[in-house]
């Protein structure tokens, strides 16, 4: 973890409520896909954690959804402005156990961290399937970007306005070697129940510090108490309490 002052290069909407922000600055603290940055915003006390969507040299891409005061303020920031971030937070995904045919499963604003992950897996020569779930066609983003990387990208919408009607569990490939998931907890739980292969799931929480000091986001796992910000946000399927709940 390091404190970095990034410069905003671009901050534009992808959908009605989802924005993409491109930043320039030191990206070396970011060592794995699935990590996040914690952003300081004027007039707000707590930093706002946002997952890393992509890293390319000294370029950092974030994709975030406007859900409250902090992200609303973030969406109004202009190119050229500086952004104070604690960078390279969290454990990130472990790519070593992906196997030959991993599947990446994202729901809504859980999709962004899977992009950098897909890029790394493709670089490593894996055949990557990506299952993207959205509520409706208007909320869709990054389908083409995943395809451009060389992924087998599939889309499901809850209302059937685009792709397969239903949840991401309706479009899962046969017999993946490993899964990487990020999205709302009901989606994670559905994926956990639907797939037998090993997997890694990324969780979110309201955080205090984002680097493991305040114990504000601790959850219980089969392997002890874990801070979502520091020991996560990525948890292994095997350690989730869901295993014990039958």
């Amino acid at each position, binding site marked *: 973890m390091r*404190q970095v002052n990034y410069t905003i290069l671009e901050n534009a909407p992808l959908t009605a409520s989802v924005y993409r922000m491109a930043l320039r600055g030191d990206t070396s603290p970011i060592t794995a896909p699935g990590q996040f940055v914690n952003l300081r915003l004027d007039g707000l006390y707590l930093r706002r954690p946002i997952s890393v969507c992509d890293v390319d040299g000294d370029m950092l891409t974030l994709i975030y959804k406007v859900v409250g005061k902090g992200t609303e303020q973030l969406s109004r920031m202009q190119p050229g402005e500086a952004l104070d971030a604690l960078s390279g937070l969290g454990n990130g995904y472990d790519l070593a156990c992906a196997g030959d045919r991993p599947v990446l499963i994202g729901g809504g604003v859980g999709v962004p961290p899977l992009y950098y992950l897909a890029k790394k897996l493709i670089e490593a020569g894996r055949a990557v399937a990506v299952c993207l779930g959205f509520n409706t066609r208007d909320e869709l983003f990054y389908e083409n970007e995943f395809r451009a990387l060389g992924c087998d990208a599939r889309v499901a919408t809850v209302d059937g306005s685009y792709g397969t009607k239903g949840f991401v569990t309706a479009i899962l490939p046969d017999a993946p070697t490993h899964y990487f998931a990020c999205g709302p907890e009901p989606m994670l739980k559905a994926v956990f129940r639907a797939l037998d292969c090993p997997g890694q799931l990324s969780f979110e929480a*309201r955080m*205090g510090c984002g680097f493991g000091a305040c114990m*504000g986001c601790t*959850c219980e796992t089969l392997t002890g108490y874990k801070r979502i910000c520091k020991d996560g946000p990525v948890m292994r399927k095997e350690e989730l309490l869901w295993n014990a709940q039958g």
Partner: protein
Amino acid sequence: MERTRVNLLGIELDNPVIPASGTFGYGREFAGLYDIDILGTFSFKGTTLHPRLGNPLPRIAEAPSGMLNAVGLQNPGVDKVISEELPNLSKIFHKPVMANVSGFSIEEYAETCRRLDACAQVGWLEVNISCPNVHHGGMSFGTDPVQAAAVTKAVKAVTSKPIIMKLSPNVTDIVSIAKACADAGADGVSLINTLMGMRIDLRTRRPVIANVTGGLSGPAVFPVALRMVYQVARAVSVPVVGMGGVSSAEDVLEMMMAGATAVEVGAANLVDPFACKRIIEDLPGIMDKYGIETLDSLKTGGSTAG
């Protein structure tokens, strides 16, 4: 360093800056960021006799100029602190540490303190009778002078280390609680713990924090904390450790002018992990600006009387 030195209950501190309990863990996260030996000391995560997971999530909420937390004393329990955290700490921190203790009964407070009394690394015991986030314990001992005195007596009986009672601002008259602790033998008092508050999510129409209420900290509480430190420092003869929203070297000086012997820094560590380092580095320059030769002179100079 000579200029910023203070004496807290017989132990010399290089400076009065002390990360507050619950914002600094057992030191590990921060030792990776800067040399934590620059600190006066730090107060480690509130420790109880038995391990605690704490409260359900969410435990954190934004507040104007501050934050709410309802962590609920998550900690690994005193035995694990002694067998794992303190040995680990000895590699990264080479000064006496302040052990923060909480409990759910007078016997539990005493037993936890008795076990920590045996640890050479522990310089002071800060006894938290003011946690607003646990039920049937914590703050209930700090809102009644009789109970506060009873805890003080019980912990004094089991340790030779200085006892600092950490007080709650969620009372009608904090001075009476401070006096009760001092009269019962407390070597010092520290204040303030967080102020009880809450937030409601307009969309769900429910409290943001699962525990419903949480403790407010951050710059929002600084004037309240300063006022209470001022009142208590004038009413008791034992040293007062001031805290509550301290975020800068200027805030440290204000706290000391109000009568604090040393100053704890809490929430600031969470939003700026380098906050204490920055404050310590800023102190001499800010002292120059206000014509303060030594911090000791603030204490003995009586500049706050009247």
